[in-house]
């Protein structure tokens, strides 16, 4: 692999900046979906729509300008299957119970949240356990394939640009109305708070930088399986050798910074995946930690209600499982696949809603009795 130091540095930098942005704005995607069902209103969800619309615009402009090369279906976003929907639903339950999605867990962990540390371990456990039933799940995924089209433009057999312009015009109308009515702005009584709409714009730029230079949209979940695989190789190498999921080399993608095709898999070896995702994960944690220390809000609290810790662990395990079953997590799909109109990502996103609803029911019934 060429240019490894540059790629590691670049991914780390993207992580640091994302960590600071997400911590300062508390850009909690899990919360955005949960509040829809918990409070029947979710003002932060508008910022997520802004993020998706901006990413769509930036990706399409970069593609037309020749700065971004992708084609669907690819190893990044494949053909749609019912398992994408199921994965999204399970992920939705998990993220609400954990109190944050995968990336959310990372920036909360960085700022000193103990439940986030717990769900981080849950994520590794869940991701690693997936390897036990990977062959079965892969069969189910193939058996429930829904279409030979990978994206909306392919499904409708229309020019991508036409669809993108139509969707952007519709989203633009909504965003413009919210903006003029002041609904994009959050009330702020805290020093150092970053408005979520600003965070959305910045994160869209980070997503484009990641996609166009590393060759992958922002994503981190395969790394959790990888960490689990390293561990399993230490404690149970015999069993490990029987798991096809960890023995395979995963998928291939073109890395512009390395100027070659790299492999990216969950197995316990250094490859094109760890090269980007490990520094990204480290960066998000450190960036958020740095931001929390600067605000003077970094402190660990251990005296927490037990149901919350159990919920965080359980939610983490569910998210770990779901992110392997889908495959990939909400950031990969919401910030990467949805702006490309990938059918996989659309199914995943649809699945998030019933999942978040069910997770919220469980949360209010068993965890936070009000």
């Amino acid at each position, binding site marked *: 692999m060429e240019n490894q130091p540059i790629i590691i540095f670049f991914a780390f930098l993207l992580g640091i900046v994302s960590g600071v942005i997400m911590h300062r704005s508390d850009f909690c995607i899990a919360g955005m979906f*949960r509040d829809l069902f*918990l409070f029947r209103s979710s003002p932060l969800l508008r910022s997520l729509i802004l993020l998706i619309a901006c990413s769509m615009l930036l990706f399409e402009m970069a593609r037309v300008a020749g700065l971004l090369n992708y084609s669907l279906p690819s190893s990044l976003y494949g053909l749609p299957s019912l398992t994408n929907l199921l994965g999204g639903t399970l992920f939705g339950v998990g993220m609400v119970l954990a109190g*944050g999605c995968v990336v959310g867990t990372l920036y909360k962990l960085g700022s000193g949240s103990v439940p986030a540390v717990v769900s981080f371990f849950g994520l590794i456990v869940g991701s690693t356990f997936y390897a036990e039933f990977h062959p079965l799940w892969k069969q189910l995924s193939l058996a429930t394939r829904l279409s030979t089209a990978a994206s909306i433009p392919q499904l409708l057999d229309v020019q991508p640009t036409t669809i993108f312009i139509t969707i952007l015009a519709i989203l633009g109308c909504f965003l413009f109305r919210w903006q003029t009515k002041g609904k994009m702005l959050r*009330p702020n009584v*805290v020093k150092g708070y970053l408005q979520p709409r600003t965070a959305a714009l910045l994160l869209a730029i980070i997503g484009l930088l990641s996609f166009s230079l590393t060759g992958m949209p922002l994503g981190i979940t395969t790394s959790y399986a990888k960490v689990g695989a390293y561990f399993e190789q230490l404690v149970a190498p015999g069993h490990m050798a029987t798991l096809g999921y960890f023995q395979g080399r995963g998928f291939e993608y073109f890395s512009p910074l390395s100027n070659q095709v790299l492999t990216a898999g969950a197995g316990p070896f250094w490859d094109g995946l760890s090269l980007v995702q490990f520094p990204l994960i480290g960066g998000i944690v450190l960036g958020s930690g740095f931001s929390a220390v600067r*605000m003077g809000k970094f402190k660990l*609290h*251990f005296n927490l209600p037990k149901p919350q810790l159990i919920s965080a662990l359980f939610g983490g395990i569910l998210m770990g499982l779901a992110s392997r079953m889908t495959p990939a997590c909400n950031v990969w799909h919401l910030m990467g696949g949805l702006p490309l109109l990938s059918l996989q990502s659309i199914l995943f996103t649809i699945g998030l809603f019933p999942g978040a609803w069910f997770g919220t029911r469980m949360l209010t019934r068993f965890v936070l009795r009000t």
Partner: protein
Amino acid sequence: MTEAKLKQVEIDVCGQICPSSLLTTLREVNNHKQPLRSGEIQLDILTDNSDSTNRIFEAVSNMGYMVEINEQKKHFRISISKRNRTEG
């Protein structure tokens, strides 16, 4: 800031998972509705989460209480009390 005769009730939700801070606050405000409305007590919520602070401020202000935020060393102290008529 606050009158000395006001009894303070303190609730610490630092470090708890979202959305515990807001839900706990809303529950405690409801539980202490009578003494809060009559101006007997002041409810202090301690949280280290900035988004929760914004949300609690918004939600409890909308319920007609006076809400003051004091940024302390390791957390935010959100003081909830009866709103004076003059402040509308």
